[in-house]
């Protein structure tokens, strides 16, 4: 062990300089403030806000979450304060922290997406945009943007046209061909792809003979989904030229480094922050320790370094 080795954890994510590759995932870290008691924001690469929309959203009725074997389902229903309140009440906090904040956003129509991108583009405290395309397209009869390459391409292109900020498109895993989706988004102008968003799952309460979630189905996350996420990141990283953000079931530094080997430039920690609010910081620290212990001077040398 070369304990005195200085390791370089920094990565550049489509123009966003990250001091290390560990970010926190949208919807699992609030607007950043919620975790100040547990995570020194200076210890992580960046954090992603809860998904934002033009108008505030109430979200779904409860129960909204349920545990499943090794994972959880959530049907929060994208409850969020809306862009106005975000600017008024949350952005001042972003100004104070010296860590990039990436705004996750969504819409019900292409126009709403583009309007959100335009609004977020104007906020200096927002280092980058992450588009959540796992939302139903109300104009096209509810088909999810992220389930159809053409649909995804059109919404990505619309956002690309109105922002110069780094545009990360977050892919839905609920598709036959994740590589086709990735190509469509890359070609439409995405600067980076993050994956995976949650899988669609369901839980049933046998005794009540009812779904556990008021919304019936929910988004599946946590350690259980890691094998699927890792496979998709590996497939997509081989296929596209833009940097990848690996997400899905990352609980510790080993998991995070596996995603980097599979081709991710950075990772996001989601559900793990619920189990250990300090998870993201711990993962960044343990990653540094692993690099030292293994004599790896630069984490960038591990990106896509899987031998197959």
């Amino acid at each position, binding site marked *: 062990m070369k304990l005195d080795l200085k390791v370089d954890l920094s990565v550049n994510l489509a123009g966003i300089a990250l001091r290390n590759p560990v970010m926190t995932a949208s919807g699992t870290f609030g607007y950043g403030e919620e975790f100040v008691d547990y995570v020194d924001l200076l210890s992580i690469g960046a954090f992603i806000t809860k998904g934002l929309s033009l108008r505030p959203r109430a979200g779904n009725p409860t129960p909204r979450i349920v545990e499943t074997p090794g994972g*959880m389902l959530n049907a929060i229903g994208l*409850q969020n304060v809306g862009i106005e309140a975000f600017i008024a009440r949350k952005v001042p906090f972003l100004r104070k922290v010296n860590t990039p904040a990436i705004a996750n956003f969504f819409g019900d129509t292409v126009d709403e997406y583009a309007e959100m991108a335009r609004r977020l583009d104007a906020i200096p405290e927002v280092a980058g945009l992450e588009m959540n395309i796992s939302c139903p397209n109300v104009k096209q009869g509810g088909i999810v943007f992220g389930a159809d390459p053409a649909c995804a391409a059109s919404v990505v292109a619309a956002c690309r046209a109105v922002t110069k900020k780094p545009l990360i498109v977050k892919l839905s895993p609920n598709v036959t061909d994740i590589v086709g989706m990735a190509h469509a988004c890359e070609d439409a102008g995405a600067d980076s792809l993050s994956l995976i968003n949650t899988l669609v799952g369901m839980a049933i309460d046998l005794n009540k003979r009812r779904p556990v979630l008021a919304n019936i189905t929910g988004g599946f996350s946590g350690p259980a989904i890691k094998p699927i996420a890792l496979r998709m990141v590996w497939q997509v990283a081989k296929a596209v030229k833009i940097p990848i953000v690996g997400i899905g079931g990352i609980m510790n530094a080993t998991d995070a480094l596996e995603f980097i080997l599979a081709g991710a430039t950075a990772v996001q920690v989601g559900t793990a922050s619920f189990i*250990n609010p300090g998870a993201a910081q711990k993962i960044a620290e343990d990653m540094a320790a692993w690099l030292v212990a293994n004599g790896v001077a630069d984490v960038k040398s591990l990106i896509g370094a899987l031998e197959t």
Partner: protein
Amino acid sequence: MQFTSMILSNVEISPGYFRMRLTAPPEFSAARAGQFVMVRVSAAIDPLLRRPLAIFDVGVHKPPQSGSQAQPFFEMLYRVVGKGTAMLSVLHETDLLDMLGPLGSGFRLGSINEEKLIVGGGIGLAPLYLLARELVAQGSPVRLFAGGRTRDDILCTTEFERLGVECYTATEDGSLGEQGFVTVALNRRLDLLKGRATLYACGPDGMLAAVAKIAAERNIPCQVSLEGYMACGVGACLGCVAPGRGHSEETPDFRCVCTEGPVFEAADLLWGAHA
């Protein structure tokens, strides 16, 4: 605050109900009645999520031996209902548990002189003992109304009596105290007090709704402690929300149970959605 607790004791106090005492860091003695902890039941991923449990009591153990260090502790009272609580129930002294807390907002104690009527249903008693202690400590008159399905669900009344709290009990099957709901005795007491009292309640939704209704009808203050499925306990996942008074599809008003609650003024909540 995240910390590791060592189990000091874990005893079945009534069939299916356990009382666990654990070591606590010194800062934990500032915990207030109504606050809770999120317990990581296992270091493995099954169960994955932490379990929210109320703080039943806090204290400091001063060992009789001179020279020994005083040991802050806290207690939890829990009912075995599923996987997580079943796993807790088989843990032993010296086993370690990963804790997050104290979390949430706790009860407001209110004016000293007014009589405080505490209503607990079954395991709903868990956050109410520390409340009773705090109310007694500030000199308020306190009465407990404990309800349950059977006598097995009436917990720890001795502990309340030891504080000087008068206890009324009612069970649905009549196996202990009055038969029926404890709200009957509550109403009797409120009739006597002519509406000068504060209510505190924790228990099943039906009981909370009934108590909230009584409070609303008599126009007296009432605080209730809610449950909600929680993932994070720190206001980030938005899983635990409850609809506030003004909530509707068009005017969403969801309150975060883990940070704004679990204790709410009953009047601030929407009760239709719960009943």
